């Protein structure tokens, strides 16, 4: 069974902290994605990566960075967390021919 896992289901951090969200996939997929989900806004793309050490900005990259040192792992970094980054974060992966993405269970981050 294919799997995308995320390091935490729930996370509470303080304003100004550096936050790492980890995502691992076991399908040998080249492409990986980070989305943010907010009520009434659907899913918005933060960053995606199509290869190790390669990254592309999505629609809302401000305040975030990413790291992809290994094919199976894609990390989202909040350099200095702010309350407006309280949200659900979803990781996904796909092959280059795409035709659908596989999603992790999500991390619900609360910044206080």
């Amino acid at each position, binding site marked *: 069974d294919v799997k995308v896992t995320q390091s935490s289901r729930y996370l509470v951090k303080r304003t100004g902290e550096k936050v790492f969200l980890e995502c691992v996939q076991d399908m040998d997929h080249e492409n990986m994605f980070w989305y943010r989900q907010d009520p009434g806004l659907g899913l918005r793309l933060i960053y995606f990566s199509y290869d190790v050490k390669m990254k592309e900005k999505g629609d809302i990259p401000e305040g975030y960075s990413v790291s992809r040192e290994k094919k199976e792992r894609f990390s989202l970094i909040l350099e200095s967390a702010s309350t407006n980054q309280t949200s659900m974060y979803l990781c996904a992966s796909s092959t*280059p021919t*795409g035709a*659908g993405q596989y999603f992790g269970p999500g991390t619900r981050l609360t910044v206080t």
Partner: protein
Amino acid sequence: AQSVTQLDSQVPVFEEAPVELRCNYSSSVSVYLFWYVQYPNQGLQLLLKYLSGSTLVKGINGFEAEFNKSQTSFHLRKPSVHISDTAEYFCAVLPAHQAGTALIFGKGTTLSVSS
């Protein structure tokens, strides 16, 4: 650029009733189309997808969707819903020539099934 509009933000129905969740898209190029379901506090699960071929696509849990190119729609249907179908449903589009890139999602439709 592509966009997706889910025409209803909330759809309340009674158990065993039929349901249709509406999705329209905008694109000047060929697209792939998807429906995902999200149960409370979970990630997204693929319900079905249209890549090519038959315009009627059958998915998991008894759902189906019909691709209508002339109306640029991809509505999701189920003839008889269960309480367990209560969830949020997302329609998404992907340009066919950019198949490995990110999906473009609608804002979601919350389906609430009551007895």
